[in-house]
Structures are given as C-alpha cells and as structure tokens.
C-alpha cells in the first residue's frame, strides 16, 4: 500500500514522456519515471521514496525493443528480466538477471529499473560494464548515447528528466567466454554477499562486482592486477582484492573480511574457468 497519492501517466512515445516530465516539473510536481514499479512501490510503503507523479515508460515502443538481428544487440529498458532470460540474447546478462530477486518478481522488474534502482546492488549493470555496452538516454535535451563505463559511477549518472531508453551491446561480445557467480549468506533468493561478472576479451579479463561495496564497480586497478600474468595466480587475486574501492560492506549479511575472502575465492574460480577457455 502506497501511503500517499500520486498521478499515473502512461505515454506512448519518448517525446510525450519527456514533454510530460517537463510540464510536471514546471508546475512543481515531483515526478519519477516508472518501469516495473517494484522498487517505487515497496520503498514508498517504507517511506524511502516519495513522488507526486509517475511516468510509466512501458508503453513506449523503443523501450520494449529486443532486436538481435544486426551487429548490435538492442535491448529496451522496459523489457522485464524474465523476457531477457527467455530470449537469452546475451548469456552473461541472462545469468545476472536470473539471480535478481525471484522468478515472479522478475516478471515485473525491468532492465532499466534494475540499472537505475535505489537499491544499490544493480546486478545487471555488471554484465553491461564488462561488455562495455552503450546506453541510450532520452531527456529534455534530446537523445544521447554513451558507453556505460563513462556513465556509471556507483550509479548511472542521469540528468534531470532523463531516462534510459535502450542498451546496446556489440553482437561480437555477447558470446565471449564469461563467468558469473553470486554468493549469498544463505538460500537461493536474496541480495549478494558477493557477485562477480567477468568476461574475457582477447587476453584481457574484464571483471565487475556487486555486494562488496555499497555500489557496483568495475575498476581499472583491479583488472590490471588480475591480468598481470607475470605473477602467480594467488598474487594476482590478492593484489586485485587489495585494490577494491572502499568502503567494504560490513553488516549482518557478512563482515568486510568475509566478503573479501569470498571475493577472492570467486576470483580464483573465475580465473580458472576463463583461462581454461583460452
């Protein structure tokens, strides 16, 4: 139950959505773009989100695109995670999506919603960070397209009135050797202690992480250590872990030391699996 009122809008086009946002903001009406809505509804109930209007982007055709026919894989931001899983155009993204929440919730949770969520795990971002996907954004100043690695600093950096329309991944990258592992404190559903997504492009291993810090990250320093084949595997892993950004999460789900221990174990698994596929 949402304990306050808001107005609901369902535009049929990008222009209509952005125009609506501008008009509402000009009237002083606080507005949020709305995808699956799961986070907005649950966090509203808890008092962590408030808004006077929502603009549902699910009826915008571009946000519902799933085009795997050209050199670029194009994924609309309003595709649900289960739609992505069932179509499976990008296996690493499928693995990341399948570990988010539970199956029924994923019928609602959208790709764009997971990327832009307030809940900081944002695990689909990991697959996009290692594949260096492009993000198409619409807003009051029109369209822009940027590499996710330039846009994602702890969270996606969106301007006022902007929303994610699509994600584009080079088709040549979606079948590259990859590794995905999520470790929870217990059970098969829930937030991670550590999630790692890695992808091997040429000789370089790209790796992105969630659950270790209060934000997902991909780090050039961490990858430099991980890819330093002049050192022993154990040294590569330890120096990579030492280079993780701070702070390391330390909470009831797991201590900071334990998360780093789990991360090191998973990196060992990742290196073993990816280097065997050379």
């Amino acid at each position: 139950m949402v304990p306050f009122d808001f107005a609901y809008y369902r535009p049929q086009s990008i222009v209509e959505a952005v125009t609506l946002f501008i008009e509402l903001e000009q009237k002083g009406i606080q507005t949020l773009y709305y995808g699956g809505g799961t986070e907005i509804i649950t966090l509203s109930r808890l008092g962590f989100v408030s808004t006077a209007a929502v603009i549902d982007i699910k009826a915008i055709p571009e946000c519902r695109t799933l085009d795997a026919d050209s050199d670029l894989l194009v994924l609309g931001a309003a595709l649900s995670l289960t739609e992505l899983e069932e179509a499976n155009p990008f296996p690493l993204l499928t693995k990341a999506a399948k570990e988010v929440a539970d199956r029924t919730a994923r019928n609602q949770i959208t790709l764009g919603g997971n990327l832009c969520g307030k809940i900081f795990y944002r695990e689909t971002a990991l697959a996009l960070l290692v594949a260096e996907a492009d993000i198409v954004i619409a807003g009051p100043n029109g369209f822009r397209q940027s590499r996710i690695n330039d846009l994602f600093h702890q969270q996606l950096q969106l301007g006022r009135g902007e929303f994610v329309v699509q994600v584009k991944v080079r088709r040549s990258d979606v079948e590259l050797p990859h590794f995905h592992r999520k470790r929870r404190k217990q059970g098969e559903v829930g937030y991670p202690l550590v999630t790692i997504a890695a992808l091997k492009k040429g000789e370089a291993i790209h790796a992105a992480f969630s659950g270790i810090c209060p934000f997902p990250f991909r780090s050039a320093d961490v990858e430099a250590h991980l890819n330093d084949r002049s050192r022993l595997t154990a040294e590569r892993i330890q120096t990579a872990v030492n280079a993780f950004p701070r702070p390391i999460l330390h909470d009831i789900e797991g201590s900071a030391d334990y998360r780093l221990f789990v991360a090191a174990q998973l990196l060992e698994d990742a290196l073993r699996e990816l280097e065997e596929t050379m």
Partner: protein
Amino acid sequence: MEKITKRELVLHVNGERRTVTARQADTLLFVLRSGLGLTGSKPGCLNGDCGACTVLVDGMPIKSCMMLAIETVGKEITTIEGLGGAPIQHAFVRHFAFQCGYCTPGFIMNAHALIERHPNADQATIQEWLESNICRCTSYQEIEAAVKEALEAKKVDI
C-alpha cells in the same frame, strides 16, 4: 493534467468486466480485496517477498502488492477465485499441501502459471518458480509433490 488522485478503472477480472474507483497509487492487491471484495489474494509481507498475493496478469504470475491497479487496465487478471477447480487445486488437496493455508492461493496461482506455460518443466525450473513463494508452515515437500502431479497430468492431457 489536473490533479486527480482517484479514477474510475475498468478491470477485466476472472472473465468479468468490473468497474472500481481507486487511487492511482493503489496497488492491485488493495483494489482486488477492498474494492472488488476478492479476498483470496492474501496480504503477507507487502514487500514482494512472500508471494501470498500472487495473481495472473495476462497469464503471467505477478505479485499484486507490487503492481498498481491502474497498470492492469486492458489486461486480463485472474485471481484464485477465477481458477474454478483447476487441476493444481485438486492436487493440493490430494497432497494436503498446506497447513494454515494462508500462502496457498499465491502458491496455486504461481504453480498454475508454471503448468500452463511450461508443461515440460524440469526440476530446476520447478524449483526456480516455487522459490517465489514462502510457506511459513514449511509444506514445501507436499507443495512440490502436488505441482509435479499436476504437471504429469498436464502432459497426459497434451
């Protein structure tokens, strides 16, 4: 763009056209129960965790505590009241797949969708789907047995 917090919604529920006045911020669960008197869908965690409120929207299981009623305009909603003695309901009875019964409507709606959409579901798929619901009486063994029996019956039907 006048400020209207309530709207008259026409919802298609269990094969009927139902008109209800609701806040635009009202969840589907709230409108089904308080607006339409369909109390089979249960409020549990109200946080998308327990699955007791699961209904079908265009045949897809949805946690109705996490969807706005206004989002379902133009879609087909099926609640436990609309199943009308589906095979999974009889399988639950035969396997005594409940104790207190509070989670049962949600489990049944989810399992019914699984059977309809994936009649050849393997063990991993069954587990993945059933993980969306929680039974605090821990009747999981019996629930899984009921789902498997209904899946087998569906295969025979096909």
